[in-house]
Each structure stands twice: as C-alpha cells, then as structure tokens.
C-alpha cells in the first residue's frame, strides 16, 4: 500500500559524537515532487541526504522511505532499497578509471542480467537525455565540470530510480550549465515519475524548478513553503537568503571575541 509521501522523517536527531548536527527534524516529501533543502553551508543538509540514503544512522527519530524504516534495514535490505535510489554527488564522483559509457552502464551491469546490446541502447538513451550521447567514449578527466555533472546525472538515473537525491547540483557551474542542470532535474523527475530531493544553496535557480522548499539553519527547519510563498515570506532568515544579504540571522562573522579585545589582547594567535 503506497503511502502518499515517499519520504517521511519524524523527530530526527543526529550528532557526530557529541556535536549535534540535526535537531528535531520532521518533514515529508510527497511522491512525484521536486523538493529543495536550503540553508547555509554546514547547516546539516548533506547529512540529511546521507541519513535518507542509510549511510548514517540517526541518534533518535524515524526515517521512512517508501514505507520502510531506513535505520532498521539490514545490509541486504538497504542495498535493495538503494537500487531504487539515485544520488548525484557534489563533484559527480564519476569512476575515473572507466569511460563515460561504462560509468552509466555500471549499475546496469552490476544489478541486472541484461545483454550488452540492451545495455548499450539504454546507456545511449540516458546519455541522450542529458545531451551527451556524443561524449560516450570520453574518459571523465576529459570532461568539463558541467559535463561531468550531467554524466553523473545520467548515471544516477540509470536504473530509473523512484527517488533521486542531489547534493549541491549547482555548485561551481557557469550560468549556462547551471540552467541546463536545473531544467534536467525537473524534466527527468517528471519523465521518470520519480521524486527528487535537492540539497542546494542556489535560491534563484531553485525557485524556478522546485515544488517545495525547506529552509534549514543550525540543524533545524526554520521555514518552508512553495516558491511563491518563499518569495513573499517576511521570515528574517528566508528574507536574508532570498535577497542574499551578508548579515542577518545568519551572522557574517564566525563566532569570535570582540575585534577590539582581540587587537588589544595580542600574543595568543594560533595558540
């Protein structure tokens, strides 16, 4: 019996040893939607993706994907679930010792008994979807950053996953590549009937393509809404983020002593 939400997270806490990263996170990701998790660097967004993918275990709370509790799965069940997930890493994480074609074919060869001819057709179709069919023979080192991201995207959707997760898909891309990746994320989600979670801090691009946005800060969800609601929001954090202001609820300065005190104190630098 499929639930309405593909991903359900309830009262989630996570800490690295005794350093708390996420506190009391509750959120639902409805099927078929593209959802962005936003927030400044280091607010725990990527950690949240790893928790959903089962790479980390929460200290408290529930994570359910397609009705299954992720932390309760054993290694085999977790791998079975991951076969239905695709993940795009921040820098692509392509296998550098094999070609673009073999990167996209990797999961098909590992997890299916399909013949090489069928795999060839499928790989070329996936590469065609990201506009890089012509680049199938290249090695990852020969690709530009934007192309590598698109190949990684083709690899992430190789087995038509039900859930696609993106970790900073826009980081370090030129405006053209950025626009292309943004469009692809939306189109692929709709074409595959998948659900997408995208961790990003690129607010302008996200507002164009997503259905829903969660804002995170200090390990908590501070705001949420549709792109229109976010644009109209008067929440100070969201306002600072949308209008890219240097200072606000998210301080410009890393916590430190007052400048005057530091200048007059002297001598203790680097101690």
């Amino acid at each position, binding site marked *: 019996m499929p639930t309405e939400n593909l991903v359900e997270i309830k009262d989630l806490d996570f800490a690295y040893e005794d350093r708390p990263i996420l506190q009391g996170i509750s959120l639902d990701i409805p099927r078929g939607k593209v959802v962005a998790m936003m927030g400044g660097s280091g607010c725990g967004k990527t950690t949240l993706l790893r928790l959903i993918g089962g790479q980390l275990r929460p200290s408290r709370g529930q994570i359910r994907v397609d009705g299954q509790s992720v932390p309760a799965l054993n290694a085999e069940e977790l791998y079975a679930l991951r076969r239905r997930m695709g993940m795009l890493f921040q820098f692509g994480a392509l296998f550098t010792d094999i070609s673009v074609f073999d990167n996209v074919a990797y999961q098909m060869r590992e*997890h299916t008994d399909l013949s090489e001819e069928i795999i060839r057709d499928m790989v070329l179709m996936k590469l065609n979807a990201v506009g890089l069919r012509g680049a199938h023979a290249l090695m990852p080192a020969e690709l530009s950053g934007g192309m590598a991201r698109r190949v990684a995207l083709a690899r992430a959707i190789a087995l038509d996953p039900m859930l696609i997760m993106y970790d900073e898909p826009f980081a370090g891309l030129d405006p053209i590549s950025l626009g292309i990746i943004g469009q692809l994320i939306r189109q692929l989600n709709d074409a595959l009937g998948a659900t997408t979670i995208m961790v990003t801090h690129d607010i302008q691009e996200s507002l164009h393509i997503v259905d829903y946005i969660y804002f995170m800060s200090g390990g908590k969800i501070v705001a949420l809404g549709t792109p229109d609601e976010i644009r109209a929001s008067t929440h100070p954090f969201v306002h600072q983020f949308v209008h890219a202001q240097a200072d606000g609820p998210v301080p410009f300065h890393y916590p430190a002593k007052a400048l005057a005190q530091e200048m007059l104190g002297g001598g203790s630098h680097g101690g």
Partner: protein
Amino acid sequence: MADEERQPSALIGVLLTLGHIVTSALQRLGYATRFLIMLLRWSGQSFRRLHLTIREIYFSGFQSLLIIMVSGLFIGMVLGMQGYDTLQRYGSAEALGVLVALSLVRELGPVVAALLFASRAGSSITAEIGLMKTTEQLMAMDMMAVNPIARVVAPRFWGGVLSMPLLAALFSATGVFGGYLIGVVFIGVDNGAFWSQMQASVDFRYDVWSGIVKSFVFGIAVSLIAVFEGYDAEPTAEGVSSSIKSTVVKSALAILALDFVLTSFMFREAG
C-alpha cells in the same frame, strides 16, 4: 612550592598521553581487525568476478616485474662478487653457487622482493583507494548498492597476496643468474661445481619452501596494510599522502619483524 605543584600534573599529563596513545592504537587495531573480517566476508563475492582480481594481479604483479627482476639481478651480482671474495680466502670458491642460492632463496628473495613490492605496488594501491575515497567514488559505489570492499578492496588484496610469492621466486631466480654471471662467466668459478653444489645443498623442504611461506606471509601483510591505509585515509590531499607514507613505513617494519619471527621458527624446526 610551584615545582611540587607542577610535578604531579606533569605526571598526569604523561599518563594521559600514554593512555591516549594506547587506547587509540587499540582502537585502530580493532578497526583493522574488523576491516579484515569484512574483507574476508566479501572476498567470496569478489572471486565470483575473477577478472577483477586478475586485473589487479596484472597491475600489482606483472607491472612490478621489471623492478623486481632488475633488482634481483643486481643483488645476485653483488652476492657473486662479495661471496667469491670471502670464499676464495678459504679455498672454497666452488661453493659460491650454494652461498648465492641460499642467501636469495631463504632471505633476500622474499624480504627484498617484499620491500620493493611495498614501495612499488603497495603505495599505488593505497594512493588509488585513498583518492577514490577522497573523490567520493567509494561512497557513490556504496550508494549504488555495490559494496566497495567486495568491488575495490578485496580484488586488490588478493591480487597482492597471489603476486608476492611469484615475484619473490622470480627475484631469487634472476639473482641466482646474476651470481652465475659474475662468478662463472666473469671470474671463472667452475661451472659444474657452481651448479652441482647448489643442487646438492639447497633443500626443497627447508630452503625453498621456507622462502615461499615467508613471501606468502609478507604478501598478506603488505597487501592488508596497503588496502587498509587507503580505505582508512583521511579524505584530503594531506591525508592520502600520509597514508601512502604509512603504507611504506609500516610494510617495511612488518616485513622485517615478521622475517625475524618466521626465521626463528624455521631454524628451530630445521634444528
């Protein structure tokens, strides 16, 4: 007064440091043991794809052939010169063949070949796995439901374990040839005496077999250190470089210490 106060705190400081060193060493040892168990557990799956291990035998074993054989030749030639110089003083230059063969088969073959193997193949295994970790390739593999220990670590480990005895045997063989070249061809030791004395005095059970056992044990030690250091590397440029250094240093120490232990057992057995 001040000294009296400082003394116990200095002692506690030393104890604390000592305690920290011991517990962290034990923790690492425990982690390494767990890693070995995982490696053995996943080895079966990796053997089902034998081409992966064969590929690693090619990279670690075949590609080390040149350095191993050239070094063996030179060491054999040096043994020929030094051995002749000493033996002719006692009028037993015909025993040169025995001296060269025994030194190589029992000691120098396994030990020097293993030291060379650690710096040639061990370091590159650590660098490769460490860089795959740094570029998130191992994590990407894990997210694609492919176990990195089965796919990346186990083939490299077994490739090294299987290559090592063969390399040591080839090292000894080229070394004997080097000794022959200097002793018989250049210095003029009697050809028949050189080979027949060698044949009569080198025992398969005690000499050749003990060399094979040693090189097999060194192969396990070096390969395990190399894959573990790579897998456990800090995912930064500095971390990978320090892991490579660790592989070479720890392998060298392990080879020499194990050589001492194995030799003392073998001598007892022989006596």
